[in-house]
């Protein structure tokens, strides 16, 4: 589903790469947490999957596409298979909940009939069936994030990327969002979630990939946010294990 082969990403003007020879594979239907301190390369990782950036070195395959050689004009069509959720929701303030979700489908050219069916379904799935005519500023943070999730999954993407989706929410609301993401995962969508929320990661017991200064230091099935097994030195030795 997602495969990184010795991927490095260095931004111009910096000496230390954002990602340093990262290799990993994420399979269909997995739920993966991406943890690590700020600046550890989580966002670069997600941006590379979205093909917002090209890697400096190494090869990236997503959904059977070799992203390095994907021509620019095909990127939009590739992205239609991905859903993205952000910490700051990124809703359009002048559109209603329904229109925010419908906008995604409109701009990729879906028919009016399809939109009339798919949008209420997605809103029902995230538990906002009765609020389709509200505006984002009338909703709570948790509800806004649910709208964003509805927008991300309305087109039934194969992969859902979530960049700290609970970063702005209280624990109870976060738990609701996690239940929702879990349900989306159960329906077959691969979910990749970058987070700082230790409680959530510990509770969910899913695959955890930890990044420190651009390198994978840990890749555990059913891991927690932190592990005592990892010594403070010799991070590099873990890289080999993760390579398929």
């Amino acid at each position, binding site marked *: 589903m997602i495969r990184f082969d010795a991927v490095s990403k260095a931004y111009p003007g910096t000496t230390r790469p954002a990602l340093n020879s990262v290799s990993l594979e994420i399979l269909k239907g997995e739920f993966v947490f991406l943890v690590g301190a700020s600046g550890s390369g989580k966002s670069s990782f997600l941006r590379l999957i*979205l*093909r*917002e950036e090209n890697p400096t070195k190494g090869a990236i395959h997503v959904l059977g596409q070799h992203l390095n050689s994907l021509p*620019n*004009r095909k*990127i*939009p*069509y*590739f*992205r*239609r298979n*991905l859903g*993205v959720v952000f910490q700051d929701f*990124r809703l*359009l*303030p002048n559109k209603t909940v329904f229109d925010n979700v419908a*906008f*995604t489908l*409109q*701009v*990729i*050219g879906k*028919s*009016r009939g399809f939109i009339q069916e798919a949008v209420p379904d997605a809103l029902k799935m995230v538990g906002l069936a009765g609020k389709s005519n509200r505006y984002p500023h009338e909703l709570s943070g948790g509800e806004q994030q649910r709208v964003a999730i509805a*927008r991300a999954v309305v*087109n039934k993407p194969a992969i859902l990327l979530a960049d700290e989706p609970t970063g702005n929410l209280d624990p109870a609301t976060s738990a609701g969002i996690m239940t929702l993401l879990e349900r989306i995962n159960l329906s077959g969508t691969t979910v990749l979630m970058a987070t700082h929320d230790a409680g959530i990661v510990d509770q969910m017991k899913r695959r955890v990939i930890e990044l420190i200064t651009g390198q994978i230091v840990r890749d555990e099935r059913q891991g927690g946010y932190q592990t005592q097994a990892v010594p403070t030195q010799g991070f590099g030795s873990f890289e080999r294990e993760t390579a398929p």
Partner: protein
Amino acid sequence: MRLGLILGEAGNGLRRNVSMVISVILVTFISLTFVGAAILLQMQIGQMKDYWYDRAQVAIYMCTDFDTTGNCTQTEATPAQIEAVKAQLESATLAPYVEKFEFETHEQAFKNFQTQFSDQPIAAFVTPDTLPQSFRVNLFNPNDADVLIESLSGSAGVQEVADQRAYLDQIFAVLNAASATAIGIAVLMLIAAVLLIATTIRLSAFSRRRELGIMRLVGASNRFIQTPFILEGVFASFIGSILAGGAIVAIVQFFVKGVLAQTLQTTTTLVGLSDALIVVPILIVVGALLAAASASVAISRYLKV
């Protein structure tokens, strides 16, 4: 569905940027009016060349009692000298170039002069014998005037051999300068228009950057994202070029056909409405192309993936 959406987006952009759109309309209007005026002037020059070069003659002025220039020594050209020139015009060397020629006597010259300058005081001071007799020669090819000038300038009793096109070339030089000026101003204004359109589109894109970000994220195609902006630019410049076209037609109708035609009467041909109607579509196409090009360049940085 999609067309409606794209048009709706373009309409939103235009509404949000009304003042900028108006300035784009005005600048394209002015610049394209200058472009149109330059084209009209070139058409006018072309028409005048066609008209006058056909009528342009080579004049062979014979001496009068008052001339000291040329081969004259203040004596009237004798009938023998006139006959000699006439014989030369009919000779085998010159005849192939000459379409026809006629001789203008003092009296005819005086009559022409009186009608041409009837409303000017100089007409009162001229007497028939101060105006030279002349041969008026029409050539098959006006470019051969030099042949006549060379072979006849030295003949006895000839004051001057003048190619009338020389006078016309001065007029054309003035008209050409005017049209070059119009083109220069037009180019400057067009640059301003292009930059203004680019700025307007950037502003419009900036005010919609959230939508653009989401569009790119969910996989809207580049064409879908940029078309509303290009339409915005093209729409604004389209209105400007329609106005410019209207201005050109108005200039021809009221200034050229009204004022100029009245003043010049029938002395020359002037551009007409049919010429103006050729210019209008040119202006519209030029305006639309420039707007589309500058808008698509301006929006391209928002499309980088």
